[in-house]
């Protein structure tokens, strides 16, 4: 073991004494990452990068909500039926078109189509366009049922309607879309929950169930585009939530007052024209509730994301959003060279006869190989770790405040870095073992590294996930992105990286043993 450590330590010492190597290992990826971050992240500015025509699949499964069912006064308050007034007469069924479908409207906005909803006329129900803080065009003609979305979405999104959630997810997996927005069947009832009466016969809006959340299924290969889609959906849904909350509050207050009046005997039911009252309820004008809606905190719970963590990215400044994938991919890309050329140095040692000198000593050859690999593993590990730390420092300087761009889970960062280092070193052994000479390593090494970088999206453009998954850069960057977003769903990434690393190492060691016949 002491001999293995001696070889490993010698590797470390020799590597970190080489100034040119240090420049290649650290300075180059740092400079590149910073330039990319500054170029696409606009420094510390909070504006979004300039993206256009982001492909998005839209699946609308929303079944809508019936206002009649939402109010549901006869069922909720059966005692009314015992009185002189027929519940049906108290609140007669709403006319046709009283159903609300927020899913239709969300889909229409995303698809840049006219918003057409039967329940949103100015004289019946409410009109989304009249809400303040709306994403919708304020200049539309009054009294029409059509609301055009603000022009930016048409340019920003290239949306396509799809029929099923599975179909949409598969299309994202294929790289066809940056994200899929899946509106669930219960979305409208989630936004506009039904009434229920509590024990004191006080009407309350029921809590929303989780099954009504909109899913944004994002592509790992296009994290920025996917995060923009997520952001847009959050914005629109927040508007719906405001409408739902405002409408619910008004209905709740009105019905409660009505019931209270009946109970207190303030109203002579026979004298009340309930049909008119119910019509008044139906005619609630959201325009009057707009300011109230803007004061309500948006309900972020109405959006869920799948596969990719995006919430934290939304919160982080653009520089951080860019520096995480760009920095991680650059770090791994340059570590690949360290991995290959670190192992290749064994050929250099053979040329210099230092390898032969070690072999002639009473040290098993396997120890020498393990020591060499251990040294290289530690070098790659330190390289990635130092780059992550340096990028954190740069990001903090650019943003103007201390920012842990890789997240706060230090243990997880170390584990991911270790898995990546093992994979990179294993690949190095494999490439060197595969080549018949140092010259071939010089040829194959960069070719393989650049191919992996292209597949893994290290050069600023992303290939479909199916292709990207062949690159260890993809798995590494994805894990680091998840860590940056305070998510821990990277077990598969670790499995792939560790597995790939061990497999490549064993394969490379077997090949290498044949090459090492002196």
């Amino acid at each position, binding site marked *: 073991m*002491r*001999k293995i450590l*001696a070889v490993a330590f*010698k590797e470390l*010492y*020799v590597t970190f*004494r*080489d100034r040119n190597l240090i420049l290649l290992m650290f300075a180059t990826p740092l400079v590149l990452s910073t330039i990319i971050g500054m170029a696409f992240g606009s420094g510390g500015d909070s504006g979004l990068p300039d993206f256009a025509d982001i492909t998005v699949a839209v699946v609308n499964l929303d079944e809508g909500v019936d206002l009649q069912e939402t109010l549901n006064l006869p069922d909720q308050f059966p005692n009314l039926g015992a009185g002189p007034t027929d519940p049906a007469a108290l609140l007669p069924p709403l006319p046709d078109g009283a159903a609300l479908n927020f899913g239709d409207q969300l889909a229409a906005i995303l698809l840049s189509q006219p918003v057409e909803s039967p329940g949103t006329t100015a004289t019946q129900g409410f009109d989304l366009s009249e809400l303040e803080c709306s994403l919708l065009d304020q200049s539309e003609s009054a009294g029409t049922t059509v609301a055009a979305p603000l022009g930016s979405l048409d340019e920003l999104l290239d949306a396509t309607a799809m029929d099923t959630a599975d179909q949409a997810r598969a299309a994202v997996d294929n790289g066809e879309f940056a994200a899929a927005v899946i509106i669930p069947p219960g979305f409208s009832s989630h936004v506009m929950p039904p009434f229920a009466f509590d024990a004191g016969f006080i009407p309350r809006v029921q809590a929303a169930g989780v099954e009504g959340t909109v899913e944004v299924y994002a592509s790992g290969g296009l994290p920025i585009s996917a995060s923009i889609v997520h952001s847009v959906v959050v914005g629109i849904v927040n508007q719906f939530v405001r409408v739902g909350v405002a409408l619910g509050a008004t209905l709740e207050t009105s019905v409660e007052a009505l019931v209270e009046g009946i109970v207190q005997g303030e109203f002579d039911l026979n004298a009340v024209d309930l049909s008119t009252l119910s019509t008044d309820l139906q005619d609630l004008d959201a325009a009057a509730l707009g300011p109230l809606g803007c004061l309500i905190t948006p309900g972020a719970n109405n959006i869920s994301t799948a596969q990719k963590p995006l919430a934290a990215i939304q919160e982080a400044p653009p520089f951080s959003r860019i520096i995480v994938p760009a920095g991680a991919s650059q770090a791994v890309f340059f570590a690949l060279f360290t991995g290959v050329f670190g192992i290749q140095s064994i050929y250099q040692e053979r040329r*210099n*006869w*230092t390898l*032969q*000198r*070690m*072999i*002639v*000593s*009473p*040290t*098993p050859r396997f120890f020498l190989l393990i020591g060499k690999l251990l040294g290289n593993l530690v070098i790659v590990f330190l390289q990635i770790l130092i780059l992550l730390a340096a990028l954190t420092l740069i990001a903090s300087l650019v943003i103007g405040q201390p920012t842990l761009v890789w997240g706060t889970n230090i243990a997880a960062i170390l584990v991911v870095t270790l898995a990546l280092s093992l994979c990179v070193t294993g690949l190095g052994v494999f490439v060197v073992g595969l080549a018949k000479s140092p010259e071939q390593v010089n040829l194959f090494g960069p070719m393989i590294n650049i191919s992996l970088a292209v597949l893994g999206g290290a050069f600023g453009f992303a290939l479909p996930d199916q292709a990207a998954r062949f690159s260890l850069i993809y798995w590494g960057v994805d894990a680091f992105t998840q860590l940056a977003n305070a998510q821990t769903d990277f077990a598969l990434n670790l499995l792939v990286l560790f597995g790939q690393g061990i497999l490549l190492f064993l394969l490379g060691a077997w090949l290498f043993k044949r090459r090492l*016949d*002196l």
Partner: protein
Amino acid sequence: MQTMVETRNLRKTYNRPDGSTIEAVKGVNLEIRQGEIFSLLGPNGAGKTTTISMISGLVEPTEGDATIGGHSITAEPMAAKRLMGFVPQEIALYPELSARQNLAFFGRMYGLGGKALNRRVDELLEFVDLADRQNDRIDTFSGGMKRRINLVAGLLNSPPLIYMDEPTVGIDPQSRRRILDTVKLLRDEQDMTVLYTTHLMEEAQELSDRVAIIDHGEIIAMGTQDELTQQVGEEDRLEFTIGEQEIAETLFERIQQKTPGVTRVLYNPTEQLSDDSSESVPALMTVFAKRGRTALPQILQELDSAGVEIQSVTVREPDLEAVFLALTGRALRD
């Protein structure tokens, strides 16, 4: 005297890229005794390094075996390796490490550590007079200084046997002298066994207790210098360096027939050092004669009458070069 190294039918065959094979060493049998300097003398490419590589466990023999202090290098490699040190032809040191760091690293490869390692490194640095440069990087050393560190790196484990593969290649005469003196010192003061390979006849003659002459992967002669020179008799060797000109075979025959005491005449024509080199080795005519100095005037007369331009003449007593020439028909330089 106890046998330190013994090889039995040591053979190494390499495969060529075209599928054919080349036999680098063809069944070498050696017996090296404890405390002697044993030289393996032969021209470049004769198989010296391959032989020493097999004996040191660097290269696996295709056939045969070698024992070091009774331990088989193939069956008990670790036990055999503990008994040996190795000084390769190349400067097998890390240029970016200091002399001390290099010695310490290779010392650890022999299982040394702690104070014992430090003490041994100190001793060796003193031994080669480089203690004052111990913390300087190797790449700042002169060629001779590197050679000295290269040599003592093979002595770290205080081995009873050391292999030295042409340790004086490419160094100045002063450093070479120092190395040769060191080798003798190792034998005389530390009773070490030295297996020394060289293509320089002078080194082999000066150092060796016994010599094995190797050519084309085969041992063609082995013994003490006296035993070997006796193989070529008491003949002197007259070497004539000749300019670039064609010489008729009949001239050689005439010299051999008309000059008393001359037994043989060999001729090595002018040749290029390499394909892309403009330099060339001048033609050499070698005459073997019982009384060289007596025969010399008549030979010179014959050459002069034939119009041969003579650049230099050397008269040599019987030596290992003569033995090699006699056995192979070629000079060691070839």
